């Protein structure tokens, strides 16, 4: 069964960093429309700091997720610190320091991330938050893992699910976070967190795809 070496995590993590850095302005703009405009700035700061601290070191995918999550939680704050911090640290824990990551394990990691998130926020699908991206991605992976889909195809499916989820936030009305107070005025613009989550999941998938064997 296809898998990738946990030990080669560096390239996946750096791909995630690159995705955030490359969309710093865009994320700020999206958050500016119905939020407070700091999403790109904060995400960029956290991910860039992580890359700086990593330097030239090798790192396992699961350790890297933990470090990145802890950094966001402890040094960035905002909503993103606790949210992505929790997601990444829970994913890391679920990886259980395995040497190889196959589809079932990756799906389990993602589910753990989502469940950790559900522990700290009340938002669920349909509330116009990053949950709308993350939840369908996890669902898709779970289904593919159960059906024994090839890892590469499952990643493609996950990307499509994340993208569809992200797109769905455009027409939703926000119920949590800063834009929640906008009511009807929040429709027509995608959610900032859902947008960054889509970028991260895509970058993660691409990073993994390049390592699959």
């Amino acid at each position: 069964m296809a898998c990738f070496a946990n030990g080669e995590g560096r390239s996946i993590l750096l791909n995630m960093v690159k995705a955030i850095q490359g969309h710093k302005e865009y994320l700020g703009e999206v958050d500016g429309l119905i939020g407070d405009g700091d999403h790109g700035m904060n995400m960029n700061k956290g991910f860039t700091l992580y890359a700086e601290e990593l330097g030239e070191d090798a790192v396992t995918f699961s350790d890297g997720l933990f470090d990145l999550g802890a950094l966001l939680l402890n040094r960035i704050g905002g909503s993103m610190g606790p949210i992505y911090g929790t997601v990444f640290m829970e994913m890391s824990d679920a990886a259980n320091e395995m040497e190889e990551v196959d589809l079932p394990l990756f799906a389990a990691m993602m589910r753990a991330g989502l469940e950790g998130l559900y522990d700290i926020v009340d938002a669920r699908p349909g509330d116009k938050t990053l949950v709308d991206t993350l939840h369908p991605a996890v669902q898709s992976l779970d289904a593919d893992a159960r059906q024994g889909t090839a890892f590469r195809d499952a990643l493609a499916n996950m990307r499509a699910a994340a993208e569809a989820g992200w797109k769905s936030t455009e027409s939703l009305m926000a119920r949590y976070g800063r834009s929640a107070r906008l009511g009807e005025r929040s429709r027509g613009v995608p959610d900032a967190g859902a947008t960054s989550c889509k970028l991260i999941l895509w970058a993660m998938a691409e990073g993994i795809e390049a390592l699959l064997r």
Partner: protein
Amino acid sequence: MQRILNDPDRIVDEMLSGFVKCHGDIVKRVITGPDNPRGVIAAKDAPIPGKVGVVTGGGSGHKPAFVGYVGKNMCDAAAVGEIFTSPTALSFLEAFRAADGGKGVACLYGNYSGDNMNVKMAARMAKREGIQVKTVVANDDVASAPRDQREKRRGVAGEIFMWKCGGGKAAKGGSLDEVIAAAQKAIDNCHSVGIGITPCTLPAVGHPNFEIKDGTMEVGIGHHGEPGIKVCPLEDAKGMAKRMVDVVLPDHPFEAGDEVAVLVSGLGATPVMELYVLYDEIECLLKDKGIRIHRAYVGNSFTSLDMMGATLTLMKLDEELKELLDMEAWCMGFKQK
């Protein structure tokens, strides 16, 4: 962007450095662990053994909030986040440590999802260290949710009255529950609304965050430029005052004979002279309704970077709140004899 700064990503730390240098007679910087090099801002004599610690915190860009309300009879410590970004859980935890005098900590903060999450996590960590933390979440911004969903409303300038009353209660030797009760009563009695007339620019972003078209104003705008309830043509001070009073009065509701504290705060870049013009109108409207003004505060008390506009906060007073509000206070942002 025409602003005074160095690296926008370091503006918060540099501001804190200048703040502590300038106000060393009121505050100090406390670093209790290696993981949070920024530390927190604490009152010079904090923690006071035997006193309930009062803590606040929030994103930066709201000067004097939050660090400007650390000082005598107000907050004992404040956690400091990036611009418009909640402080980390670790940072709140450090503030709890810096404020705890053995009687527990009242964390009085504003209703933003980042703050909610980080305070919750910090309180959990504090418990493990044996520090008891109770919270009051300010939700005085009338425009941010209907009255029957008050728990969804944002916290804005009413937080200042919450700190004043909670801080006063703690200074008088109140127990943690008494401090929490006083702060909760204060914020329950606070009703605020803002009007934005120009947008603000995050230093790291470099262009305005959102748009307020020339000739229009955003009624009910939030402290981060969150859109309000309504965009309408720019009005004169009299019109703005009426709009603000009309939003705030029915919300408590305030009635003839009520005694209130009034706070008119600029959003950062509005000349203070204009705030007095606005207050002049507001005072007339309140008087007309038979509302009695016990104390009034006018100034840039809770701002949003370089936004132009103002907020109005009314707090309904009873004997207890009056006594707490009247107490001396000495912070960078609140000096009262």
